[in-house]
């Protein structure tokens, strides 16, 4: 296809279809081994989870003051991952950003599965999972409803809404593409695409309403995405625990979420475009733009870390000072410094255009950013809890095998779902690509003079 790009100056719509459909071709052995590996991780996690529910949360390494550590870290991490997807698909849509078209489906798929993964963690961390429905408002014989003051109930509503709306948004966007896929697919796949296309035919009436609902959903998703991570940050900011109780948390968490999410989009899209040969659809230009967002948000969170520390120093609140002293120099201080290196130092490499346009570099940096952002949540959650207001109750968290496996399983679960979806659903929005195709080519050409593929 590389040759086609060079020679075919007049791009055709059908090229887009063919490229995307090729990605949807039946997976090879490597693909299925990968899916199987993810499924195995998931199954392992379910096994450990079952054991945890059966025996009690004591099988984890959670301890008396450090009541939340890996599970809520995972929760915040996955919710954060989800956010960049909505940013790319909804917010950039509202800004009519052209480069989003190639990657937004991938990002949005990531959003849905990341939220679905995140949504599991509040359940996993529950002491009595079998009573989780107490959080749901429904008429019952106890006449008792959840307490809407609790940030956890906000979480329930926010995550529930977010999952619903982002799923709706994803599947709404999928309707025309499924209709397209329906036309070339056979067998059960045809049935699948028929169901998800809802009989879409692309009539003028359908397109007219589609445009409106898509715009409105994007419009709703934009404040939603900001609210969801704010609500998640309020899980912490609403408490009075030193290290949590901070007004900076909402914007800081949102920036961090976009940072980690864009990094994960890079992590996911780089192998996909390589293995499924989508280089012409998802070009270096797209990756470059993503990298710029990563760089920008990295600078924001660097600033946030500084402001957070500055406020602690400036306020001279002894409780906060002690907690932050422990965060930097305590027995688990190395987590903080690894986090700083991953989140603040390594992304600075992205100032270099050579790094930004090198997929290997981008991939490696994105992995570091993911590690760093996971650690950031861990440092905030577990570290602050361990060094709480009551010095006699300080106790640091050490992980046990259950949490490690369940954390790994969450990646397995996410990647399995993502891989399956990416294989069976159009991972690049064909309609939008067609819409902007001529513009796109031009943009890539002008900015990145074509280099021969190795």
């Amino acid at each position, binding site marked *: 296809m590389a040759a086609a790009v060079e020679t075919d100056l007049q791009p055709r719509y059908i090229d887009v279809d063919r490229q995307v459909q090729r990605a949807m071709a039946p997976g090879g052995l490597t693909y299925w081994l990968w899916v199987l590996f993810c499924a195995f991780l998931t199954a392992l996690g*379910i096994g450990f*989870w*079952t054991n945890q*529910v*059966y*025996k*009690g*949360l*004591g099988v984890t*390494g*959670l*301890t*008396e*003051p*450090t*009541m*939340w550590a890996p599970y809520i870290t995972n929760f915040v991490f996955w919710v954060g991952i989800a956010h960049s997807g909505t940013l790319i698909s909804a917010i950039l849509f509202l800004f009519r950003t052209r480069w989003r078209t190639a990657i937004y489906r991938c990002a949005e798929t990531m959003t849905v599965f990341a939220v679905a993964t995140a949504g599991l963690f*509040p359940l996993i*961390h*529950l*002491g*009595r*999972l*079998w*009573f*989780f*429905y*107490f*959080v749901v408002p429904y008429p019952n014989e106890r006449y*008792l409803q*959840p*307490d809407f*003051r*609790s*940030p*956890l*109930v906000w979480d*329930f509503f926010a995550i529930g809404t977010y999952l619903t709306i982002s799923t709706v948004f994803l599947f709404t966007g999928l309707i025309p593409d499924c209709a397209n896929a329906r036309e070339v697919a056979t067998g059960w796949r045809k049935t699948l695409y028929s169901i998800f296309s809802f009989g879409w035919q692309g009539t003028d009436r359908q397109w007219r309403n589609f445009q409106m609902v898509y715009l409105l959903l994007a419009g709703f998703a934009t404040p939603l995405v900001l609210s969801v991570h704010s609500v998640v940050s309020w*899980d912490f900011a*609403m*408490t*009075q*625990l030193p290290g949590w109780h901070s007004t900076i948390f909402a914007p800081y968490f949102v920036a961090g979420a976009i940072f980690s999410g864009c990094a994960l989009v890079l992590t996911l899209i780089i192998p996909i475009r390589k293995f499924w040969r989508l280089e012409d659809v998802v070009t270096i230009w797209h990756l470059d733009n993503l990298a710029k967002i990563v760089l920008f948000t990295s600078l924001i969170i660097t600033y946030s870390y500084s402001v957070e520390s500055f406020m602690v120093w400036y306020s001279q609140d*002894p*409780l906060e000072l*002690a907690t932050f002293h422990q965060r930097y120099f305590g*027995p688990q201080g190395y987590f903080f410094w690894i986090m700083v290196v991953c989140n603040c130092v390594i992304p600075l490499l992205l100032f270099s255009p050579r790094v930004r346009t090198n997929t290997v570099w981008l991939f490696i940096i994105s992995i570091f950013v993911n590690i760093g952002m996971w650690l950031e949540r861990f440092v905030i959650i577990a570290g602050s*809890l361990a060094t*709480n*207001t*009551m*010095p*006699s*109750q*300080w*106790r640091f968290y050490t992980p046990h095998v259950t949490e490690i496996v369940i954390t790994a399983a969450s990646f397995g679960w996410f990647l399995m779902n993502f891989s399956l979806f990416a294989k069976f659903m159009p991972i690049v929005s064909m309609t939008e690509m067609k819409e902007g195709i001529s513009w796109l080519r031009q943009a890539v050409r002008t900015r990145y003079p074509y280099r021969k593929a190795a």
Partner: protein
Amino acid sequence: MSEGLSRRSFIKLAATAGAAAALPGCEPAARKIIPYVVPDENVIPGVPTFYATTCNECRAGCGIVAKVREGRVIKLEGNPADPISQGSICARGQAALQGLYNPDRLATPMTRRADGSLQEISWEEAIHQFNARLQSAAQSGKNRIAFIGSSQGPALDNITRLWLQTWGSERLVFWERIGEEAARAAAQACFGRRDLPIYRFDLAEAIVSFGADFLETWGSPVEYARQYAEFRRPKLRNGTLSIGKCAYISPRLGTTGARADRWVQAYPGTEGLVAMGVLNAIVNQGWFARDTEIDLGALKEFVSGYDPHSVSEAAGIPVEVVTSLASWLGQSNSALAVAGGDDLQTYIAAYLLNAVTGNLGRTLVFLEDSPPEALTPPQDAAEVVQSIHDGQVDVAIVAGGANPAYSMPAAWNVAAALKRVPFLIWMGEVPDDSAQAAHLLIPTHHPLETWRDSHPRAGVHQVGQPVMQPVFDSRPLHDILIQSAHLAGGTAGQQIPWENSADAVNAAWQQLQSKLAPDTNPTEFWSQALRTGGAYQEAQARKVTLDQAILRRKLQFRSAAPENLMLAAFPHIFLYDGRGADKPWLQEIPEPVTQIVWDTWIEMHPETARQIGLKQNYDTRYLYAGINVVEVSTPNGSFEAAVHITPLVRPGVLAVPIGQGHSAYGRYAKDRGVNLWAFLPEASRSVPVQVRLTEKRYMLTTPLGNSDMMGRSVIEAMSLEELTAGKQPEVEREAQEEMPSGPYEMYDPIRYPGYKWGMTIDVNACTGCSACVAACYAENNLAIVGKERVQEGHIMSWLRIERFIPSPEEAHKAPNLYLAPILCQHCDHAPCEPVCPVFASVHTREGLNAQIYNRCIGTRFCENNCPYKVRRFNWFAPEWPEPMHLQLNPDVTVRGAGVMEKCTFCIQRITAAEIDARTEGRELKDGEVITACAQACPTRAITFGNLNDHNSAMVKRRVENKPRAYTMLPQLNALPQITYLRSIYHTTENL
């Protein structure tokens, strides 16, 4: 619950699958109700019955009350009528319940097969063997039977004595390792009588304790703690506000040292020397009382070799300490010197100090009609053991928890003696170290299941009644002995006229009635005794004079400290001499000073640790981070234990708790730690040792995180000067005005028109004895989690004794140690409440912060947001091995796995009292509701009451002590309903 997968388990399993999440977790209503055939008129099912009885856990003789529900005792409380306990009880007393319900109690009589294994036998067979062996031993000559037991009160001890006589033997030992020999022998030497005096700490203005840890294990801790709290209460003396001054001379701080003004870190074994130095200073300064009729010349001669300089050098303490202690004792209106340990000379010196300073008869009182000596002196016990060694004994009986194999001095080699005896009979509850070699094991009743009496001191006669039916198929020890004596027949058998021990106790009380109250009705006297727990009378003080001969005696003290390290063993505050080790409450409640649980540790000063090559630095923050094991070699062998580096011990001294290291004694005690008795010489608790660092690592377990308070307002203290300086208690003002000034409220404050419960805790009175913690465990069905899970941070205590070590910079203006009970503060602005998604944590209309277990889904958010970290999470479902579950309070839900729990201010007691008051159509009276912790507290540091009642003792206490009042972490504006009263200390300059 059926076999295999139970329904609840199924639901848990199904919950992960998300399938049956809506199924409720309850059991079907299918249990049986079996009514009485003829009801007991005194028992109303569902309403507790209280029986007065006596505590048998130590020699102090506290009167206690057993709370019985549906035939099973669920809690022990102090007996308010009893002059010793006065309604309080210590942790060890509470834990007697766990001895009663111990799952490892011998269930049936057993005999040992040839291969060493045990075989169950019937009671008939056991009794037959018992008597047959005695018979054949008695036939082969006199004194072929030895009995080693523990004293069980005059009536039962009399049975034992008579029984042994009928079998023709005199080899009788009533054994206590932490005995009274030194005190009695010293009293004999000084005053010509082997009585034990009583101490009046409350009347003293200054107390100097020469190694007597009177707030921990020495003597009668409940009583002394109460007196000590009174001693430390700020009082107006001659127009100035003052509190008593106390010095504690011991190489280890301990809670006694923690509450003292001065911790004098004398070298182990030199306490007596220091006492002599103090005496020397008093005599030379002329501070002795003029009216003592002591031969001054002889006294001067007596103390001549002990000038403060040489004494302070030998004891390793500053010389001004000796002189200032002398001025305390000599210049106070009333003072008290007490001696501890097993050293006779320390006691002599302390008695002399009291006599010389004129405090004999004032703070140290000998009483008329003191009870006869019950314990066997060690030298007599040694003789019996020697006779066993010599093969002069055919049958040896170990009974009543004496456990000689564990606690008798190593030099006696009791374990070998017991192996050597042809037939060893062990009678008791939990088979202990001494039962290892026994040929016949007979389960006997727990003291709470038997009739007995007790006569701890003149004027106090207590009757112990059984408070429940036997838990196991056991029999009362003394019933067996009486039957056996009757079987022996002849004239000897006639000496025991009673059918059983109940008769014997009753008969003893009939005699007592003719002596104490001859003009009352015997039945009335008896039932009165049962109701009040005994007969109490004012005892007459006896005028004693110093035997001048003592002044011509030459005391021998260790002249100089040896070069090598010294091991100073101390009785663990809960495990005592080792008998507490089978009771999980006592194992799991942290030792107040070190906060270590379930273990034996070696306390070592950072300096010493550096000397022996320990790389680990002393860091208050991470006690649990990593621990080295050292090998300690004593003249009696060596042992290994983990080092706990702490500044609360003298450099060069290794302080090690006594009480662990049982080779048997149930699952909670077996193979845990080190038995220090095996390494200690007779009549001393210190021994020179060599220490070698090993490569091993072993984690000591503590629920404590950081020992440094980091300047936070958790436990506060103030100096006496601060209290006096314009901050004198003002009593007259209106209560209203004196309430803590208005909190910051963003919204309209919630009104609590009816009752509003609150608590006042006087940190100044708290000794850290942890009686409240044990009471909370007993009252609220708190689970025991064991060492490994305490290490994981899973301890379940709702109430904990927090301890902080003052940093070196502030040491001169701080108490030796900060100690205070911390429990749920029931905040008005409870941070835990708004974060709960399901209203499991809510506020009641009576100002309580409620935790609704069945609503809780276990998000644990509440604990995250709790600034006081007083909430506890059920990481696993709690388990009580049978029959320990019988102890559970039926009024308190047993929490399942995944539920948060915390202090409820004993809501079950509040509710019950409110129902009673409402049915009687009245308001609750002050003091009608009392929480378990406040009830147990020996020093009455905790007061509970209604905040809306300005006349309640609780409100009055915080109003009257307003300068001392504070709330924990006030900057968080959580508005705790517990007000603490600051502890008071003397600044160093002011001592």
